[in-house]
């Protein structure tokens, strides 16, 4: 494997290893409040959001962090989510990319 690709993969691995850092921050991103948070922020749930509740239920909500209450448990869920995301996206783009690039050897 090319050295640069190998090193970038190692960096990605380090990022994945550090991913639990991302759940230390407990706040919600601006504008991404849940209906409960909106209720306490402004005192009511805007009708449009109330109607959209239950429109779609993600199979792994909150990146696998809500099954546990301890930081360790949440980290494990978050790791699993990171690994699933990396494998899915990496695999998908590798396969699609190989098809798209077929026959286009390096001319750069």
């Amino acid at each position, binding site marked *: 494997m090319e050295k640069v690709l190998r090193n*970038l993969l190692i960096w990605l691995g380090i*990022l994945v290893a550090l991913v639990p850092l991302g759940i230390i921050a407990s706040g919600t991103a601006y504008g991404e409040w849940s209906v409960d948070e909106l209720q306490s922020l402004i005192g009511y749930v*805007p009708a449009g959001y109330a109607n959209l509740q239950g429109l779609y239920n993600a199979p792994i*909500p909150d990146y696998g962090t809500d099954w546990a209450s301890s930081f360790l448990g949440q980290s494990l869920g978050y790791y699993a989510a990171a690994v699933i995301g990396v494998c899915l996206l990496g695999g998908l783009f590798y396969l699609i990319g190989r098809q798209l*690039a077929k026959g286009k050897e390096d001319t*750069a």
Partner: protein
Amino acid sequence: MIPIWYWAGRWLRTNLRTKQVPYLALAAAFSFVIMMFNVPIPGGSTGHAVGSALVAIILGPWAAVVTTSVALLIQCLLFGDGGITTFGANCFNMAVVIPFVGFYTYKFIAGKTKITDRRRIIGSAVGAWLGLTLAAACAGFEMGIQPIINVSSTGVPLYMPYGLDVTVPAMVFGHAFFFSIVEVIITAVAFTYIARNDPTIIWNYKAIEAASQPRVTAAAA
């Protein structure tokens, strides 16, 4: 967004080289992981970098449109993050504004310098900052017009309750001073590493090389 995705797909089909395929896969995975790093800011809110400026500089802005959009799709479908109803807006902000603002800012600052030139590093940093900060301003604008365009018959907001005077400053502040700084660091560090070690990965490397050669006039040649 649909015509943009269509064009981005066509661009990839024409321009993606075999050597770049593993890097494209890596870029998509990287986009996903970097967005998992929620950074807390004063005031209790959180946010994250996106990484699309880096992908735009290395693999081209059209490639970044695709990798970031699909990463956002996985986020909302599988993990319930970002939202289905907001998917188009999210893609516009993070998969179009950041790559194009980021790449063209970088290109403008870099000029005709060599791939390893310091100006390119500065360009990548400024591009990353401007790209994410402008994307945040766009998101703030999209949220802030909600109480104007989406209200019930009695004038109560149906969705976002805060107006432009609140949403735009809130989004720009958090990004300009925090999340965009993270974006700058990852973009500049990774760009520098790739440019110094294997610039042939970079999508427009040939054009950069050709433009940075000392000019030989046709007559002299």
